[in-house]
């Protein structure tokens, strides 16, 4: 009997734990925002709890209140599971009265949560998720794509490398929507700059062993190896590119790379490669001051998507203040077309037609370890590209809001 009591007791405990959970929205009626991101799987270091800290910072910097109401921050780990992410998003919007959700890495989860935001008529800012389906085929009135997309990466990285003489590209592409859209955008950018794609390998995703493709690539003697993948796949590919000694003989064009990926191998594995970022902590005095405050708070250096989330929250709160209400439709109206400038977004505005943040992007070269002076001091910015030149022109936008 004792064993049964323990077993049943555990069940009751857990169920009652749940019953006790939902906190009633108090009399003071706060404005509630929530971070929904990966805090336990592959993107946890890229964004995860670091973004939660940055969002708290944004709220504090804003004074902790808007429209005379306090601001509450919730956070959910979506575990890279779209079902969990969408469920929690729906629960946050409908039951916890959350006004806006932020971050949402991983294409499948970002798109699922965007679907919920559209259905529930509540606001969503996707920062870490980069798929351009968010601002193209699957755009909706309540979803904002805030940070970067594959088009902007290609337009900057692909074009610059080709213009500097890297004409013949050998592509290694992760065979999923994100990789495919990156391949399409990079191929266009390379061609328009006078280069050519001599071969493409559609590699299953995820993948850890790239040696077969690297042997192939060497045989075809390209000038650039283009890595059209992200995260762990890019890290593994780069580790093996170094192993094969390829980095000494040809350029590596990396589609998408974050500070946390560089740290995973150490800068020497990446040095000399060109990447595009939406911001960088060591850009100027403003970003350095922000990063110093962030480091004091968390003990760590920020990735640029954490700065992006800080900015997204700040701009959202500002829009609420301008709208004089947290009603989603009114706030959307305030955000559309709004021109602004903050620590993250420069010469920035939110394009009304596709809800994409248009802002300056930065092309950077990765420094060797010998030039790295402090933690996360990985990048040498070589070019600042205005948002208008980085992002898809208005004429190519297919989104109907």
């Amino acid at each position, binding site marked *: 009997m004792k064993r049964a009591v323990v077993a049943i007791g555990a069940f009751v405990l857990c169920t009652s734990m749940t019953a006790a959970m939902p906190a009633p929205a108090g009399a003071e009626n706060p404005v509630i925002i929530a971070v929904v991101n990966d805090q336990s799987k592959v993107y946890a270091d890229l964004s995860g709890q670091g973004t939660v800290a940055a969002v708290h910072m944004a709220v504090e910097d804003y004074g902790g209140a808007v429209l005379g109401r306090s601001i509450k921050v919730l956070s959910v780990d979506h575990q890279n599971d779209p*079902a969990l992410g969408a469920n929690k998003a729906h629960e946050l919007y409908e039951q916890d009265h959350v006004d806006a959700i932020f971050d949402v890495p991983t294409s499948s989860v970002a798109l699922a949560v965007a679907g919920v935001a559209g259905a529930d008529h509540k606001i969503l800012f996707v920062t870490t998720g980069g798929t351009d389906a968010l601002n193209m085929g699957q755009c909706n009135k309540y979803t904002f794509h805030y940070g970067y997309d594959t088009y902007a990466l290609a337009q900057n990285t692909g074009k610059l490398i080709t213009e500097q003489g890297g004409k013949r590209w050998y592509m290694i592409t992760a065979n999923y929507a994100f990789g495919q859209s990156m391949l399409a955008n990079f191929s266009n950018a390379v061609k328009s700059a006078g280069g050519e794609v001599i071969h493409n390998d559609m590699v299953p995703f995820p993948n850890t062993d790239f040696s077969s493709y690297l042997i192939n690539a060497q045989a075809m003697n390209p000038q650039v190896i283009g890595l059209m993948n992200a995260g762990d796949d890019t890290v593994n590919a780069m580790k093996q590119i170094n192993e094969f000694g390829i980095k000494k003989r040809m350029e590596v064009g990396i589609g998408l790379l974050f500070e946390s990926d560089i740290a995973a191998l150490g800068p020497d594995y990446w040095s000399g490669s060109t990447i595009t970022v939406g911001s960088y902590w060591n850009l100027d005095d403003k970003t350095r001051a922000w990063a110093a405050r962030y480091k004091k708070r968390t003990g760590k250096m920020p990735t640029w998507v954490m700065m992006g989330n800080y900015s997204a929250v700040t701009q959202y709160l500002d829009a609420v203040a301008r709208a004089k209400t947290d009603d989603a439709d009114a706030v959307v109206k305030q955000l559309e077309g709004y021109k602004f400038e903050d620590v993250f977004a420069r010469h920035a505005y939110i394009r009304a037609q596709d809800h994409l943040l248009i802002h300056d992007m930065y092309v950077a070269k990765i420094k060797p370890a010998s030039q790295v002076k402090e933690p996360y001091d990985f990048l040498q910015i070589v070019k600042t590209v205005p948002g208008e030149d980085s992002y898809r022109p208005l004429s190519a936008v297919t989104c109907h809001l």
Partner: protein
Amino acid sequence: MIARAAALDRRIALALALGALALGLLLPHVLYVGLATDIVIWALFAAAFDLLLGYTGLLSFGHAMFFGGASYVAGLLILRAHWSFFPAVAAAVLAATAIAALVGAIAIRRQGIYFAMITLAFGQMLYFLANQFGDWTGGQDGLQNVQRPTLIAGIRLDNDTLLYYIALAAAVLGVASVLRVVNSPFGRVLSAIRENEPRATSLGYRTSAYKLVAFVLSGALAGLAGALFVIAHRFTSLDTLDWHTSGEVVIMTVLGGIGTVFGPLFGAPFYLIINDRLSTLTTSPGLVLGIIFIIVVSVFRRGMIGELVYALRRRRHVEHVAPGA
């Protein structure tokens, strides 16, 4: 042999059935309706799984292929062909049945650990195939924006609470059919095979045919759960086909109690509620759930309901032997 509680006492079974039903009717009032719907779907999935594990002793580590496979079939039919609820669900269940028959015909030739590994590998094969045919399945992005189908002419399933009760009804039907199978002559042959396969063979039963039928039935009901999943969520993704999904249903069944039919109905909410709450409380859900699972496998092997039934029966046995003692 995986141990299970012997056939349930009729009174206990009735009490558990009423308890599960009461829980089902109560859930949307104490929990968020999205989570409640998930619980009902997974409870059905786990009960279907228990039909195989508990009553044939076959541990499948690839049941995600029926759940996920059916979710894609139903999702595609609704998204691309605008099928309504019943035809889409029926087609998805048929698809799961077909997959189960195909895989079962190969896998059933081995048992025990081999069977577990073979089903695991087949499940992963389907995952990779779905990943590969991204034009159809949406690949890593998943199958998004699947609008809720119409139930019957004119009534769309847009209301979440209505959908919950539809799912509950489907789950009740599913679990009832599991019970029906388990308590039929067919079920008794399954039990006989489980206890002693050579003996059942010598009695003239074609044991592999019986096991295959159980496998296919289990797969079909898992498919029903999968079809409900895509309708409830308005999307499906590769995660439904991933081997972790197969692992999750194993965990729920073991937590609830193998071979009890009712156990999984309690194991599923236990697992899902904890996982849901952990997503806001900790960043290590696997650590907590893994430790609970290890403790259950090591110490409380009968699972929550199994231990309860066992304790009740033992107490009654004691009373019977020494009345008034």
